[in-house]
């Protein structure tokens, strides 16, 4: 009786790959049903449809002025006109360049500074006041200064995008570098691993999820930085198109450019999360879709 019970428990213990109660660090996301996984793909389009419905309702039934809220059809028409304009490509290209350049700079500098500060405790303490000061200052207020310093060209926008994107990356990497598990460290020390091997096999993989967590926020911030920069100066980019549409009181075109910006921002964000899924498929955030 007892032996058969033992064996029964045994097979369940070791034959079943599902995490058990003793596994403190395992997450139960495996049990997610296919229905739950597909839900966002159903709810997303439905919500978009509802939004357009309410929008159309406000225009045709409530009778909101066309200058305040153009009809969805008018915005779609304006989008068509935008793409008919041969210059749209260069406007999109300029904004994309500013966003990506700013994001790239923030990524490189943010990882370098974050890793350095994360490793050298006294340096981090020393620059802490400056970091806090820079962080709490509303950074978009610097745009006019950058325009004075770097002119109305893309440079001032790139710097704005980089500045906004820098902090989430730097702070996450700083945290990531410090988050190496003590037990993992013991394993590497016990094996007499070299500094390089310790970095390659332990510190880098530990930090990568933090880099991506920072990058996901940073790509959104880069878009904001570039657009705000374009609002305030210059004659190129989607931010400029927003302002010029406003000045021309062309509400449908204004809405169309904003739709374009939303699509651009979403595509960039998806690019980052897709990269994350490819680089760290083992990480919990990839599995649970957070």
């Amino acid at each position, binding site marked *: 009786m007892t032996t058969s019970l033992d064996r029964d428990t045994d097979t369940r213990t070791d034959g079943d*790959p599902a995490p058990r109660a003793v596994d403190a660090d395992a997450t139960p996301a495996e049990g997610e049903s296919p229905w739950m996984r597909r839900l966002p793909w159903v709810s997303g389009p439905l919500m978009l449809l509802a939004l357009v419905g309410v929008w159309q309702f406000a225009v045709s039934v409530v009778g909101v002025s066309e200058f305040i809220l153009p009809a969805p059809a008018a915005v779609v028409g304006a989008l068509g006109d935008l793409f008919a304009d041969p210059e749209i490509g260069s406007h999109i290209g300029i904004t994309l360049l500013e966003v990506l350049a700013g994001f790239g700079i923030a990524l490189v500098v943010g990882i370098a500074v974050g890793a350095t500060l994360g490793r050298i405790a006294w340096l981090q303490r020393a620059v802490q006041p400056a970091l806090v000061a820079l962080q709490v200052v509303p950074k978009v207020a610097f745009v006019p200064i950058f325009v004075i310093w770097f002119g109305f060209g893309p440079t001032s926008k790139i710097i704005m995008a980089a500045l906004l994107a820098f902090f989430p990356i730097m702070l996450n990497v700083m945290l990531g570098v410090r988050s190496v598990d003590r037990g993992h460290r013991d394993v590497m020390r016990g094996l*007499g691993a070299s500094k390089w091997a310790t970095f390659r*096999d332990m510190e880098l993989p530990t930090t990568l999820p933090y880099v991506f967590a920072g990058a996901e926020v940073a790509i959104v911030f880069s878009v904001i930085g570039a657009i705000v920069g374009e609002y305030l100066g210059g004659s190129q980019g989607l931010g400029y198109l927003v302002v010029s549409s406003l000045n021309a009181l062309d509400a449908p075109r204004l809405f169309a450019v904003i739709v374009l910006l939303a699509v651009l921002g979403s595509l960039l964000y998806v690019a980052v999360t897709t990269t994350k899924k490819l680089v760290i498929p083992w990480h919990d955030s990839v599995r649970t879709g957070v």
Partner: protein
Amino acid sequence: MTTQQTPTATTPTWTPPPVRRDEFDAPGDTAEPMGSRAVGLRVAGVDKTYATRRGDVHALSNIDLEVGRGEFVSLVGRSGCGKTTLLRVLSGLLAPTAGTVEAGERPAWVAGRRDDTVFAEFGLVFQEANLFPWFTVLDNVALPLKLRGVSKAQRRTRAAELCATVGLSGFEDSYPRELSGGMRQRAAIARALACDPSVLLMDEPFGALDAMTRDRMNLELQHIHAVSGTTVVFVTHSISEAVFLADRVVLLTPRPGRIRSVTPIDLPRPRSVEVEATAEFGELVVGLRRQLDEED
């Protein structure tokens, strides 16, 4: 176990069928010629004092211990008696304040600096499996070989063999999060065995497992020890686990941690779970228990 202790300079102490040690030994491995004497690990006069904010803590006092080659020694004691500290000193993770640690006649600490070539001979298993979540089971097991520069094909073959040894065949490509606690600890043991350690140091490796899994892991560890002939130092707070596995049980008492007694366990091997029902086993456990209780 003691019958195996006739190693020569060229013959390894053991040649288990599935584990072809000779093929995988790293070139820089020079411990074997030292193995003419049957001492696996020698600890002499080890003292450890920690500096904490509330003053110095004397964790270990004058520890002398000799572990024979291929011998299985259990360290038991209450929480805080310094058994983990002692194991960390043996593992090279903590420098002793005084005293020496020798593996196969070679000092492991020279003037406060650890000799990595000595510690490379050790396999470590911790209370937590400490597997890397970014590696598959196979890559985790192969990690020590990777660090030694073994080629990818060779270390994959070797790691797959080790997975089979610890009963993880079929899970080589799983990630640690997909394993149960017992399976993770098996993988950790396989990783510790990857470089054919001459000494296996285990710090309550089954402490976080349920009783059923624990019994089974003890049986498998006994088997692995019998097949590999590795010297094992096993820390546990369970007296019956210590008695079941060991050739000798070392009892530590706390504040400061010192060796209170060394009890030889002459129960015949291989031991099955039934041995725990024998009068002899019961007497050994009760005797050790009494020694522990006398402290209070």
